[in-house]
């Protein structure tokens, strides 16, 4: 494939060169370029600016900015192939961006390893749910708990009692979450025995077990039956009220419209629009992008 535009002309500055010395203001100014109105006192939990990622000649993500306000449920929509999943990969550093910056909780994270980002409180899920097949559903849940005493090799030798106590406590917590997503009866089954929809639910519950500040959900409602979708939406709202911020990719517009405080639209790897769900619904550019498919 041929690289159409090695350096797209509307790309503002060579941000990669100054990734080390960036400030929050830099990122925010870029974010603001595309029409965000944000009180300067309230810093976003996640802010990314100027993200670029090419695969061969294709710019899957081309100078994209996004921000997620603390405590919000933020939506991310766009036609298939718009680069949404790739953007998640860049935010969580599963794929390293060619250019751009990501600030989480006011700190640059684009040089951290994926697991370090998760440890800081940003947990992502996958579009195609990834259950750990030969672990039980309960083990899947317990794995996600952060800073477990028993994760340290030497602690398994000398702190058996504490480890058992933690496990008991976390099992109870996992059970409450499993009940809320309707998987409690499957707790001791292999996760590989779950259906596609159940795996999506498990992934969400697992992310929650990590007790993160921000959860990135990639199409949580895909393949889940309609009655369950309502239940998932309820859950997300409850968890959100308990203080967890969400960034959600979703094709189901009902889900987006009923949950989100703010929606970002991508098309062909670029920012297309951002606004409240009502604004997005009536935005002619957005309609065009979806209909023009």
């Amino acid at each position: 494939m041929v690289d159409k535009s090695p350096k797209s002309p509307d790309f503002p500055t060579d941000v990669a060169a100054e990734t080390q010395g960036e400030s929050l203001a830099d990122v925010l100014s870029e974010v603001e370029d595309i029409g965000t109105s944000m009180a300067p006192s309230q810093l976003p939990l996640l802010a990314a600016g100027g993200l670029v990622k090419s695969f061969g000649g294709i710019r899957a993500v081309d100078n994209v900015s996004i921000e997620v306000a603390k405590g919000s449920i933020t939506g991310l929509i766009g036609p298939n192939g718009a680069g949404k999943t790739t953007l998640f990969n860049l935010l969580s550093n599963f794929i390293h961006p060619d250019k751009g910056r990501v600030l989480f909780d006011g700190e640059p994270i684009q040089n951290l390893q994926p697991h370090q980002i998760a440890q800081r409180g940003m947990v992502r899920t996958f579009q195609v749910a990834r259950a750990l097949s030969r672990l039980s559903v309960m083990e899947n849940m317990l794995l996600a708990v952060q800073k477990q005493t028993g994760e340290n090799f030497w602690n398994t030798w000398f702190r058996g009692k504490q480890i058992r106590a933690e496990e008991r406590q976390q099992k109870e917590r996992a059970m409450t979450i499993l009940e809320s997503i309707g998987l409690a009866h499957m707790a001791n089954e292999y996760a590989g025995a779950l259906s596609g929809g159940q795996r999506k639910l498990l992934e969400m519950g697992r992310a929650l077990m990590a007790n993160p500040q921000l959860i990135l959900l990639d199409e949580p409602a895909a393949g889940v039956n309609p009655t369950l979708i309502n239940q998932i939406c309820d859950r997300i709202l409850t968890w959100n009220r308990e203080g967890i911020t969400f960034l959600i990719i979703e094709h189901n517009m009902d889900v987006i419209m009923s949950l989100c405080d703010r929606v970002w639209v991508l098309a062909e790897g670029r920012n297309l629009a951002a606004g409240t769900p009502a604004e997005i619904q009536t935005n002619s550019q957005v309609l065009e992008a979806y209909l023009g498919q």
Partner: protein
Amino acid sequence: MVSYLVSLVIFTAIYAIFSLGLNLQWGFTGLINFGHVAFMTVGAYATVLPSNGGVPLVLAALIGGGLAAFLGLLIGFSTLRLREDYLAIVTIGVSEVIRLIALNEEWLTRGAFGIQRFPLPLENFRPTLFSRYVMIGILTAIAIPAFWQLWKWAKRRLQKVGTLLDAGLILTAVCAALTLWLYGVCAIALYNFSDNPSRNGLMLVSLIVLALVFWRLEWLVQSPWGRILKAIREDEEVAKALGKNVFWYKLQSLMLGGFIAGIAGALFAWQLSTVYPDNFLPLLTFNAWTIVVLGGAGNNVGTILGSVIFWAYLTITRYLPDLLKVIHGVIPVVPPTVDDARLGAFRIMLIGLILIVLMMARPQGILGKKEELTLGR
């Protein structure tokens, strides 16, 4: 007869320990290690050489295990960040390099000439009657949990199938009878300890080490630490997304598996009582894989059972010439004798055949869980 059986018990225990190391790496973590024998080689030489210099045997064995773990660290650091097939390739290479070093660095290892004399554990121990009873007590303490486990299985199995005529139950009964018999043999050997102190002592030491390694591994793989290893085996991206340092845990698994194989190497050296580079051919890695696959990857009991079956097989096929004579008596077409080289090849061929049949009938291994095979990714 007793001393022959004692020797068999020692080999079985050593191979079980050796394979438990591989089972941790492959069965639980999914690391493809095709050079497991390298850890054993390092463990053997690094135990024997210091002990010849006067280092106490326990310390020497720990040095052996420690250096084997260090080898795991080196291999891990150079390959674990790369794609996973690199580990497989590098481990093959490293095991050959280690053997060639043992062969050529004569100033250290005496090369092909080998190291013939070195201290053996308990070789000068002349126990009183009381000490012998204590040793039999230790043996009993190891045997009781094994019987308890068999009993629990039998009970559960009986509840499930509701009849005594069940393959699993019969197998359990055979295992129990065999264990009881071997327990008796070992107890007699310990009672007559002074007949062959180094051999009988090594039998007890090997069984104690096997019991310790097994007991610790079982707790480890059920702990949150082990859960991370299993998660890495299933899908390391998920482990990363949940904040686990995948590289670090793979490294730990490689090192601990290496340490265990290193300790097995120390026992192996003591059992052979001479150390040649040719004791550490790649065939040993193959044997460990056979044992792990036979018993069911990711199952520590299965690995021990695999080692028992492996050695039972080797022992039984030793009597193939006798068997052949009997068959010749009945079916004259079959030749009465075969030369050793052919017989050796035949034994290896037969084990390959058994593996193929097993993989077709029971691909999860003898103790592996059938449900695991049908799980979607």
